[in-house]
Each structure stands twice: as C-alpha cells, then as structure tokens.
C-alpha cells in the first residue's frame, strides 16, 4: 500500500508538472491549487485532501503530518525521532521548536519539541529529541512506544531561540539535560557550514553516559578549536551554579548567551544576568512554565461549542477544554506563543505564572497559563 502510494505520488507529481509546463505559466503550486479547487466541486462537503490523506497521510495539506521513520535511542531515557514532514511543512531555523500531536489511546495530545536537526540536513527529514519524564504522558510514549511508520501531527516551526544572521562573534551556551536539543541544532548548523564562531558550551547532565549527544558534542569540540565544551556531571560534581560561571567562562559578560534547561537553572541565570545589567544578552528557552499555586476553580463553559467542565484552580483552561473534548487552539502550552488565546465571555481567571487574578468581558486570555477563578465562560 505504501509502495503503491509512493508510485501514485510520483505519478501525480509528474502530471501536475506536465500540466504546469504545458500551461507555460504559473508555478506548479498554483496549478495544484487550481486543480484542487476545481476538485472540491466533486468532493463537497469534503475536500480533495480528505481523500488524498487516506491514500497517504502526508499528502493532506489540510492537516500537517509527519511520518516517524526511525527512533534512535540517545540515553537510557531519551531518544531521537526522525520525522519526514508531509506536504505543507515550511522548514525551520536552528533553535526553533515545533508542536507535535500524537494519538495516545485514541486521544490527540500536543506537546512542543525543539527541532534537534539543523535546517541544513539534506534529506528533508527533521528530528526531535525527547527525554522521557517518568511522570509524564507524552514523552515516555514518544521515547518507548512509538515505532517507525507512526504518523504524527505537526504544526509549523516557531520560536525565537535562534542565532541572528550573521551570528555574534562570541557565544555562550548554557544548557542542562534535554535543554541541549535546540542548541544541538544550532551547533550542527554552524558545523555544517564549517565555520564555528568563538563558542563556549556549558552543559550539565547527571553523568557522562547520560549526556544526550555526548559523543557528538565531544567530537565537535575536538574538531573545532573555537568551540570549548565544559561538561558538568552533576551526580558527582553537584549542580552548576552561576557563581562558578566566572571560573568556567571568565568572559561571559562579553558573550551573547543562549540558555535552555530546568526552570531553576534558568531563573538563576536570569537573575545573574539582570544583576550584571546584561539582561538583553541572555536568550532563554523554557520547556515548562513556572507556575504559582492556584486558587479556587469553577464551572467553565465553552460557549461556541457548548462544552463545559468543572475546573479546579490549578489546571490550565487549555487542559480543561481538551479534556472536555473542545477543540482548543494551542501552541507552546507555556504562555509564550499566544496560539491559545480565546475571548473571555464572563468570569475571571488566574494567571498561573503570577497568581494574579484578572479578566474583563471580551478580554483575550491565554488559556494555557490561565485557570478558572470561579465560573468562567470562554468563546470557544
């Protein structure tokens, strides 16, 4: 079936190209659009994509999908997924992340993962590298259950944890654990062009064999004299503190810094750089929002879809809605991308990051970092 699908794909591709060339004008894409538009008269109320997607899930541009082609173990609890994105994937910049949707027990779950492959990767595949959270839902599934051939859902790459073009002369990367993933993409991208700026990588992991990409990072440091690697094995040496930074990287003030890792480390770093008056030189990527304790919850009504649920004061409205079967738009799920905003129709909500209660009728709220503070109505 898949082989037949590939053959069909090539045939369809060839046909569209022939039509485009015969027409002698307009891009292939435009012709494809016109063909599909005309086809909707035959498939209404569905779209041609609804049928194409059944033959090969990657053909549907209505829903961006990818096929997992390989799962490569990195450490005991982390793995890299090699994904071939389907039609509609527009590429990414090193350091960006993508949302991945996966059906677990029949239910779609979305999480964000930094792309660990650089855009320079030649075969059109992208990779994500996931560390299994022992108490989590999606990450253990991705690391241990997903097999090649699995179809995942994708959303366009986003995020600003990227190097400017051209990159600054002096760089510092401050990472820990799975926080290496976006930085790995950046380093791999630089290495692909064979020009490594003066860079220091300060990376923490529990032990030598638990360093994600450990072998590759050491090889990169050996290959480029301008890349210096400081590996910290926290099980023996303890956690890396900002007080130690001066020793490891004396000129840290003169470097542009990209930091990614556990919340505690990032909070420390932000404080450290702020005190030095250098907050604008620090770029931070967080995998988790830092949340405060919540208050009381209440009944949440989703006015457009008719769904409702009783929410406590700590669960984000995004999760409340998803559990009630409401189609909730979402992105990073931690308050940075604004993909999840929805209009508040009534009631008040609590910002889980600050604990502040707010909300006026008609106000746009970020559902991923807001919890109900009493009964709430949301226009979704």
């Amino acid at each position: 079936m898949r082989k037949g699908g590939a053959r069909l794909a090539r045939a369809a591709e060839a046909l569209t190209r022939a039509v485009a060339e015969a027409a002698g004008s307009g891009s292939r894409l435009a012709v494809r659009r016109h063909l599909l538009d005309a086809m909707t008269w035959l498939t209404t109320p569905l779209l041609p994509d609804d049928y194409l997607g059944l033959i090969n899930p990657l053909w549907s541009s209505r829903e961006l999908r990818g096929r997992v082609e390989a799962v490569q173990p990195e450490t005991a609890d982390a793995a890299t997924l090699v994904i071939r994105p389907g039609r509609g994937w527009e590429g990414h910049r090193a350091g960006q992340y993508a949302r991945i949707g996966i059906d677990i027990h029949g239910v779609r779950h979305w999480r964000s993962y930094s792309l660990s492959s650089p855009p320079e990767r030649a075969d059109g595949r992208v990779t994500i590298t996931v560390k299994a959270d022992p108490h989590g839902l999606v990450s253990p599934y991705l690391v241990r259950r997903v097999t090649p051939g699995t179809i995942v859902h994708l959303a366009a790459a986003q995020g600003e944890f990227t190097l400017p073009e051209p990159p600054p002369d002096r760089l510092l990367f401050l990472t820990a654990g799975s926080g290496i993933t976006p930085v790995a993409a950046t380093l791999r991208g630089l290495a692909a062009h064979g020009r490594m700026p003066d860079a220091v990588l300060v990376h923490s992991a529990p032990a030598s064999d638990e360093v994600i990409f450990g072998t590759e990072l050491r090889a990169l440091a050996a290959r480029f004299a301008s890349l210096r690697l400081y590996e910290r094995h926290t099980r023996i040496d303890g956690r890396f503190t900002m007080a130690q930074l001066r020793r490891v990287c004396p000129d840290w003030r003169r470097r542009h810094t990209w930091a990614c890792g556990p919340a505690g480390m990032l909070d420390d770093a932000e404080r450290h750089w702020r005190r030095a008056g250098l907050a604008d030189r620090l770029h931070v990527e967080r995998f988790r929002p830092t949340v405060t304790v919540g208050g009381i919850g209440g009944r949440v009504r989703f006015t457009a879809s008719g769904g409702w649920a009783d929410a406590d004061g700590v669960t984000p409205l995004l999760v409340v809605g998803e559990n009630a079967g409401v189609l909730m738009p979402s992105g990073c799920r931690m308050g940075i991308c604004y993909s999840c905003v929805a209009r508040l129709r009534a009631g008040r909500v609590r910002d889980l990051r600050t604990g502040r209660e707010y909300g006026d009728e008609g106000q746009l709220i970020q559902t991923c970092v807001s919890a109900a503070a009493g009964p709430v109505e949301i226009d979704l």
Partner: protein
Amino acid sequence: MDARVPERVSVTAHLSEVDIKEIGRELDQLRDEITASLGESDARYIHRVIAVQRGLEATGRTLLMVSILPPAWLAGTACLAVAKILENMEIGHNVLHGQWDWMRDPEIHSTTWEWDSATPADMWKRSHNVVHHTYTNILGKDRDIGYAALRVSPEQPWHPIYLTQPLYNAILAAFFEWGIAIYDAELERAWRGEKSWTEALTQLGGVARKAGRQVIKDYVAFPLLAGPSFLPTLLGNAAANAARNVWSHTVIFCGHFPDGAEVFTEDRLNGETRGEWYIRQLLGSANITGGPLLHLMTGNLSHQIEHHLFPDLPSNRYAEIAPRVRELCQRYGLRYNTGSLLRQTASVWKNVLRLALPGPKPRPADDRSS
C-alpha cells in the same frame, strides 16, 4: 391540570422516588464506565468506517463514469447508495452528536464536520441535538413529533389536513433530506411569530448555499464528467440519494413512532430529575433488532433507546450497552420497545394511516402493550 396527565404518569406510577433516583445513578455509572474505557480500538473503528465509506463512494462514482454499461450502473449506484447511507447515519449523525469529540481530532469533530445532506450541519445540530434530544417526545416542545407535519400520536389534535398524511409521508420518505432541510429552518415557528422571518430566511439562504453545492455535485459535475454516461450517472446519483432518503426516513421513524413509544406533556419538564429524564428518553424511543450489518447501516439508531440515553457516547458501544439497559428495564418493570425492522416499520405505517383519521382517544399508557 390537564386531564391526561394521570394517564401519562401511570407508566411509571409503580416506581418510587428512590427507584427513579437509583435508575439515574445506575445509568450515570454505566455512562462513566463506557467513557473511561474509550480508547484506541474505538478510534480505529471510526477511522475504518470513514475509510470504507470514502472508498465505497470513490468506487461507486468511478463505476458510474462508465454507467452506460448496465452492470456498471447497478454496481455504481449500489456502492454510492451504501456510501451515502454510511456517511449520513454511522458517520455524520454521530460525529455531529459529538460522539467522537473525545479524540480531539479536528477532522472528526462535531464543530468542524459537514455532511452529505441538503441541511447544513450547524442548523441540524440545533434542531436535532438541542431541541429534539432535550425535549424528546414532549408534545408542543419536541418538533420531531411528526416533524411539524404529521400526526403520529393520538395526543396531537386532529385536523383535516392529516387526511393526506399517508401520501405525504410516502413523498417525504423519497425526499427526506429536503424535508429535513426545510424543517430545520423552522418556517412554522416564523409563521406563528415565534421567530422572525428574517432569521428564517437567513437560514433558508444557508440551506440554499449548502444544498446548491450538493445538487451541482450530484446532478451537474459528475454527470458532465461522465460524458457519454451523462444521463445514467445523473439517474444513478438520484437513485442513490433516494435510496438513502427512504432508508433514513424508515430508520428514524422506527425510532420514535411505532406503537408503544410514549409522548409526554410539557409539565413533565418542571423540575425533572436526572432519573426522570432518563426514563423519558427510554420510554420515548424504540429499537430495531438485527445483526451487526443492520446496526452499522442504521448508524446504530437501531439502538435508538441507548442513543437517547447517551447521545454522545460513540455508536459502536451501543450494542454492548443495550443488554444492560434492557436488564435494568426488566428489573424496574419499564417497557423496552424493540422489534424487527419489518414489525416496527409496519407499526409506524399503521399509525400514520390510523391517525390520518380523527381519534382514537388516547389510552392510558399501561394498556398499550396489551
């Protein structure tokens, strides 16, 4: 108070308040149990039905391209008719009920689904999910009692217009999707001044837009594409639509209008408890017995009772819920109205014919089963 009320109450007169509460609790528990067990195999089921349906539709339409050959016409029309039935019954109706919303798949979701029917999904969801499923079989509230056009219960006052209903109902069966589309615009409510004509006309506009595309697809685009098979394709599409219409009309009428399906008066709604709500749904609906294929082709509305108790539980689960509901009915001495397709259909038509004439006097519900 209405003189009929004591009769209506009598079906459940033997139940104590505690019994009713217990029925509500048991059914709630059944619902929770099924909800908790939803998973991968259910998701696989709906994906498979959708794939089969789309495959059948593509096959049928392809065969009709050469329908100038009679065997191709026959096979193509049959495939398309089955595809359209599956699309409306097991897929469309149930997706629009939100039965698959728990999967959080935007492509199989009540808020995004549109179906192969003249009536736009949005409008139908309101008239069906909100009005009919909330006010099931409440006279004067549930517009689905006779679809504001037929007399299907002795409690509806007679009018000479009903003399035509046997003929009218037969025509309605063949054009059911159009009947539903017009019905969903609730013109009679605008007539009675319960809603504005502007609103009704806007809704009719919505129907026209949706239905227009449907008509162009079946009666212009595909026949034109078939070239020399223009006419047979057009006729094949018309036949498939008619078959789908007659079938869904039959199934849906069997769900509420055979003998023994109860109707209720509006005062029943006053302070109706969860248990009482369940009992009303139970007594107002009727099942059709049959095998898995029949259940599939009726969109599991052959389990109308279970569907009315749990309208948003996935239809593939009704078959396993049914014996438990039936057992509960037995324990509490409640009628579980079920019968073969033939029997229920005959019963529906007997009612349609009988009630075209004045009378009979509504009998106490307890006597009906005799």
